[in-house]
């Protein structure tokens, strides 16, 4: 099954208000995928937008505002431990597998719970790859890491998620 990615309109916003109005839905979706918490997602979104606001005049190419916001949000999430998911701790322990293995809805829930247990960088890589549909080089640019690191992080994340599902899905 394939789910189309949300249409992310390239921002050519003339004003900050236009940018927020046009992009807040996509950015909040991304924040929610990172934080797994509506409250934390709102905090992360607002913090990101403040940084966009403060950098507004430095961003000459308005068509790249969305990319800038996504990059800022990604790095804020990965590097700023305090605000988001502070008490999370990645664990190798599989979740309680009392869920039916034949129901795809349950499996989607299981994947979501598995994502919660990934480290921040692994989770960010997975979200950028599968929610934002970005290639590895773009993900590397956003997170400020090498493409090789993206590959290894993604590979480990998928291994972990397979483990959570309890069987090899590949």
């Amino acid at each position, binding site marked *: *099954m*394939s*789910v189309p*990615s*949300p249409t992310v309109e390239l921002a050519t916003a*003339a*004003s*900050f*208000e236009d940018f927020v109005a046009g992009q*807040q*839905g996509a950015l*909040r*979706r*991304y924040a929610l*995928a990172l934080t*797994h918490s*509506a409250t934390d997602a709102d905090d992360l*979104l*607002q*913090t990101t*937008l*403040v*940084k966009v*606001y*403060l*950098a*507004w*005049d*430095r*961003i*000459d190419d308005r068509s*790249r505002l969305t*990319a*800038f916001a996504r990059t*800022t949000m990604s*790095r*804020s999430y*990965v*590097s*700023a*431990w*305090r*605000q988001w998911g*502070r008490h999370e701790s990645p664990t190798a322990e599989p979740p309680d597998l009392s869920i039916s293995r034949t129901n*795809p809805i349950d*499996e*989607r*829930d299981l*994947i*979501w719970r598995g*994502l919660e247990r990934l480290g921040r960088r692994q989770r960010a890589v997975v*979200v950028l790859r*599968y*929610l934002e549909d970005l290639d590895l080089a773009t993900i590397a640019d956003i997170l*400020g890491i090498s493409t090789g690191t993206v590959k290894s992080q993604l590979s480990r994340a*998928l291994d972990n*998620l*397979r483990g959570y599902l309890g069987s090899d*899905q*590949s």
Partner: protein
Amino acid sequence: MNDLDDLIRSSLHEHTSDGAPDDTLAERVETTGRRVRRQRRVAGAALALAVVGGLGWGTTLIPRPVQPGIVASPSPVPTSPRPTSSATPSPTSSTTLFRPNWDPTATTRDVSTVGEQIEYSAADVTPRDTRANFFASPSGKFWCTISTEFANCNNHVEMPGIEPTREQLGCDDVLVAGVEVNSKGRGAWYCSGDQNQFPQLNGPDGSGMSVDGTLWWDAEFGQTRPGLQDPTYTLAVLPYGKTLIAGDFSCTTATSGVTCSNSRTHHGFRISQAELKLF
């Protein structure tokens, strides 16, 4: 494309539906942005310094200036952006800073006249302009600020049983930030809505994070280390046994923790991951 890929995609989309648009979001962000800009009020002095040059410090002290165009930065860098979307007060220009002729072999450095220009305010303190100097502890666990109005440290590690919750501290919709001592009273935990220490000599993109705020640092007096959460940061570290002084305030690092105090009131704090002393 395999089943796991599809499952991940569908899971992410299923769990991240768009909410209703928040029509007041831009307004709230602009309000916060204006407040942050007032607090950080740096006005490109760093770039001015880089252009003027020849003011007596080595090139290693001046992080690369902000790149034009897109600069991926996890936190605002010291520039003077001026959004076009609303009437906002222009940031106040800071005066050009001259780096004092510090003795590189001394263990104490007086930073009273340097630092990033900010407006400091607290519940019991009238807002005042001051200059903030940022440093990290050698472990990287504490990011601190010292100025002539206050000294504080944010903990970048868990301190279970020591750090209060934001409910206990009454932080409302902001967060427990760290411990602080100012001109009034004992050292105490405080709340803040945003990062307010910038002890990074560079960000992940190579840009400087706060040139004015790390003017105190040089290779003879200070050290560097990678950030704990993001090793691409280079932190301006105050080594063990070294002291920064700003007016009545001083901060010293030791293996037992970072101690900051007010010599006039004799109040302050000593913070380590295992122990906190407020006095």
